[in-house]
């Protein structure tokens, strides 16, 4: 059987160009973060879900997390001259996501604090940084990122530039400036940190006090951010399904081509980029789902623990309200978890 309708099997040039651009981005090489110094007994939670003690010389790659306890500290080297300092009581994770046709490394701490020092000379491959709630772009920067137990984030810039975007608002920070971002909300007003000593423990204790003043409102912030992740994951999942339909159709079309050489060319030059696009959509819906899981685990879980243990003997009305809303949020999360997550993610 010959080719009956060439346009049927060939996407428009524009779409194909976009897909090719997207697929070529997948070939960008990511850099590893290598442990150069550590204190205590920090853990390495690997992508496949196993946990081991972290040791000197070990490398973290996408999907891996470093988990520190109260007396642990880890310093890693990233690229040629950038350093990452993971402070005590922190969960630090490296992931990858495709944005605008470019594969990006995202470093985030869903709990605790991380200090980054990116050498400007490391160039265009500076990763995005943030918490499980918000991600920021950096340029030649020394910045500390604090994650609050109730899902809020604090960015403190020592040098360079940081752009923090959340809930449709962007705040640009330069030297000695900081901004706080509530979970699910836009960044607040930036402020100067000159003469102010900020440490994670005090800041987090303050965030806990704020949380306990109105736990249900804090819950709504995390719920809003989880909803955003759910929307993003669902959108990328739909993209995946759409891309797969086009890709599968192209794959089926391969068998319709009589000429061996033309068939092979169609497979390699038309179907393969479509398959690449489909694969990227999978990686992206997984990115959003895994980010949601981090927020659910380290912010929502922490909030539940604080409320449950303080109310175990005499549950207050506020606690009952919190518990009911919490159950709704967890139900909403779980209703989608099976689609996007795997057992090894837990």
């Amino acid at each position, binding site marked *: 059987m010959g080719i009956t309708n060439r346009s049927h099997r060939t996407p428009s040039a524009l779409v194909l160009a976009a897909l090719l651009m997207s*697929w*070529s981005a*997948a*070939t960008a090489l*990511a850099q590893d973060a290598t442990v150069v110094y550590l204190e205590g007994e920090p853990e390495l939670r*690997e*992508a*496949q*879900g*196993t946990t081991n003690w972290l040791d000197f010389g070990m*490398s973290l*790659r*996408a*999907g*891996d997390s470093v988990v520190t306890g109260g007396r642990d500290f880890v310093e890693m080297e990233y690229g040629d001259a950038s350093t990452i300092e993971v402070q005590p009581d922190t969960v630090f994770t490296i*992931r*990858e996501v495709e944005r605008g046709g470019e594969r990006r490394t995202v470093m985030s701490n869903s709990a605790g604090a991380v200090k980054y020092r990116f050498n400007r000379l490391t160039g265009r491959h500076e990763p995005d940084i943030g918490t499980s709630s918000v991600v920021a772009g950096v340029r030649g920067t020394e910045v500390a990122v604090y994650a609050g137990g109730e899902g809020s984030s604090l960015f403190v810039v020592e040098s360079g530039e940081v752009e923090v975007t959340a809930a449709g608002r962007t705040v640009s920070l330069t030297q000695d400036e900081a901004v706080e971002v509530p979970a699910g909300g836009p960044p607040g007003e930036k402020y100067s940190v000159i003469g102010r000593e900020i440490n994670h423990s005090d800041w987090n204790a303050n965030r806990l006090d704020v949380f306990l003043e109105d736990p249900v409102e804090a819950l709504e912030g995390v719920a809003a951010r989880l909803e955003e992740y759910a929307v993003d994951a669902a959108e990328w999942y739909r993209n*995946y399904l759409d*891309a*797969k339909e086009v*890709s*599968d159709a192209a*794959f089926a079309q*391969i*068998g319709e081509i009589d000429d*061996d050489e033309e*068939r*092979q060319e169609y*497979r*390699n*030059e038309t179907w*393969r*980029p479509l*398959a*690449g696009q*489909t*694969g990227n959509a*999978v*990686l992206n819906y*997984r*990115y959003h789902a*895994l980010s949601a899981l981090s927020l659910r685990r380290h912010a929502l879980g922490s909030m539940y623990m604080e409320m449950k243990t303080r109310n175990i003997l005499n549950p207050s009305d506020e606690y009952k309200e919190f518990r009911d809303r919490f159950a709704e949020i967890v139900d909403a999360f779980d209703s989608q978890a099976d689609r996007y997550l*795997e057992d*090894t*993610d837990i």
Partner: protein
Amino acid sequence: MSMKRTSISIVALLKVLGVVAVALALAACSPGGDSPQDLVKAFFRDIDNGTYSNIKSYLDSGADNYNQVNDDYWTSQFPGNSYEITSLSGSDPVDAEVTEGSTTGSYRFEFSGSEGNIFNDSDYKIKKITETSGSSDSIIFQ
């Protein structure tokens, strides 16, 4: 004389038995585990059978995107179900030519890990898969 011949033949027999015993012992202790080419065969067998959950066990967990690839990912990259390896060459990397239906795909597999010895099995894992069929290489997994 006959006694001497008998004693020599017993010694020779013992030597032969000793060699056989050592050979058997070495064979029993020889390294196990899958070779890189075995892993490539297992990979396409699982792709063909749709048993994607097996694949993770022989991927390098340190590879980027290890925890982001899933069944949806593999079905998007290998949508057919009649993959047949037509040629395998090299030990690391391994170049595989594969037919699916009436077309051919060429893939390069790179590995981490090492060959085993009499004490340990080999521990090879796939760290990178590149499709090399087209005008430019496409990285499937790394």
